[in-house]
């Protein structure tokens, strides 16, 4: 079941040439030893890239990068920007925000600025393969229920940068990434791929996915265009109502959210020190933060119960023991206990909601790299050009 469409209207771009089959390997093409596999979680706010060679479990690159491209403004004096670069990426772009035009390539989980997305992908490639010589094959996470246009935009953005690509829904990749492969055959280990429900709360979308030992169908996945960014927006508006002309930027509001976010009953006082007009002030944000974050619960709870209801009666009791929250939203204080209590209050049988843990930013990329290593030759989409 789909509760919302996440489709974006793309900017005009030439038809790309991804083909759903693997053409023959070229004679003289890079040998297998020259292949580099990438697992990429392309997030609205942050992206995670892992890279490693095929046929091993080694991870040679592991980075989390803010999904932002900074185009250096005209007239910047030589030497201000290291190497007089014209384009900066990630943290470097944010550090130089005074001197660049910041562009976020994604909005609500899908590419909204194709040119910036392409520049960002070039940066991802540079991070993964500084030599520029490897043949890159990448598994890229996409929001659950991402439409064909959203997928096509990703393919276009990596054409000529990666040689092969596979697009796989993010919550399923999170399950793969969360799975402890070394313990799969151990008694007592609950394999999340066998029977679980993943709630991946990112910047642009919250994706919920039933994972029950087969690849989730469209009915097993729900994507909601309400996540971290939407909370930022609510908080930003609330702060402007409560403290007019506060001058706080969206970036500062996001930092406030990341530090103080919580759900459940109001936590007052929640005093936050900010600098407004060069002067330090303390704002009481208990209700503002709580109201904004509790909206997320109201958005995802119906989707959660819808998916639980769609599980078979044989599997649902075990499923209720394996409700797992990942992504940046898993850092909201109390989100596991609030969801668990709400389920219990509604009569669900002994529900257990867990947080994925400290690697929450990486599970999708870890799953993507596992998928890249396991993919058969004929499963890759070859990007011509």
């Amino acid at each position, binding site marked *: 079941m789909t509760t919302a469409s996440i489709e974006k209207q793309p900017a005009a771009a030439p038809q790309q040439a991804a*083909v*759903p089959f693997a*053409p*023959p390997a070229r004679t*003289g093409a890079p040998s297998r030893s020259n292949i580099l596999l990438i697992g990429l979680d392309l997030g609205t706010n942050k992206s995670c890239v892992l890279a490693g060679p095929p046929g091993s479990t080694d991870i040679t690159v592991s980075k989390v990068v803010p999904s932002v491209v900074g185009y250096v403004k005209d007239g910047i004096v030589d030497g201000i920007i290291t190497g007089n670069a014209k384009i900066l990426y990630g943290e470097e772009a944010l550090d130089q925000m005074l001197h660049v035009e910041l562009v976020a390539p994604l909005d609500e989980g899908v590419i909204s600025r194709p040119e910036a997305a392409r520049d960002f992908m070039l940066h991802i490639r540079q991070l993964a393969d500084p030599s520029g010589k490897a043949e890159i094959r990448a598994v890229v996470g996409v929001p659950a229920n991402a439409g064909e246009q959203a997928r096509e935009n990703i393919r276009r953005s990596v054409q000529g940068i990666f040689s092969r690509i596979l697009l796989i829904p993010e919550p399923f990749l999170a399950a*793969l990434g969360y799975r402890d492969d070394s313990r799969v055959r151990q008694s007592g280990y609950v394999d999340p791929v066998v029977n679980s429900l993943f709630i991946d709360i990112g910047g642009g979308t919250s994706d919920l996915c039933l994972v029950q*030992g*087969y690849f989730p169908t469209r009915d097993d996945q729900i994507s909601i265009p309400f996540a971290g960014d939407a909370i930022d927006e609510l908080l930003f508006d609330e702060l402007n109502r409560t403290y007019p002309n506060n001058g706080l930027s969206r970036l500062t509001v996001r930092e406030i959210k990341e530090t103080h976010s919580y759900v459940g009953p109001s936590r007052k006082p929640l005093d936050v020190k900010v600098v407004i007009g060069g002067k330090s002030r303390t704002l009481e944000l208990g209700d503002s933060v709580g109201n904004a974050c509790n909206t997320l619960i109201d958005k995802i709870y119906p989707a959660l119960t819808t998916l639980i209801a769609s599980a078979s009666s044989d599997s649902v009791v075990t499923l209720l023991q394996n409700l797992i929250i990942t992504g940046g939203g898993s850092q909201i204080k109390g989100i596991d206990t609030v969801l668990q209590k709400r389920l219990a209050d509604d009569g669900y049988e002994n529900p257990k909601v867990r947080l994925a843990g400290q690697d929450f930013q990486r599970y999708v990329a870890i799953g993507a790299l596992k998928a890249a290593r396991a993919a*058969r030759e004929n499963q890759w989409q070859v990007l011509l050009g």
Partner: protein
Amino acid sequence: MYRRICFLRSEGLTDEANRIEQTEFAAASAKARESAESESEADFLMKTLFAEEEARVAEAVALAEVLVPLLSRRLPLLAPPPRDPAAASVAPRGRKPANDEDRGIADFIEEMLAQERAVVR
């Protein structure tokens, strides 16, 4: 011969493709190289030939991907027997837990691709 190798690879029959490439094709390739005026010219001609054949096969497979469902729709007599709608999703519920890790993930991907193909059709 190289076109056949390309087709075999596009079908995932890499072992058979490699066998032909390393035996019959290697012999034919060596013979062809002898008739060239120089090693560099031979390389150039071979690479050109390979690129053409690879492109030809890729286009043929892509055309088939588009054409077969189109013909199936337009020429009902040629269409395969109707599928059981219940089976159309390709992913029967609770079909199997993945025992072999890599094989399991590849199977998941196969199910995903089958679902995507079903949606396109």
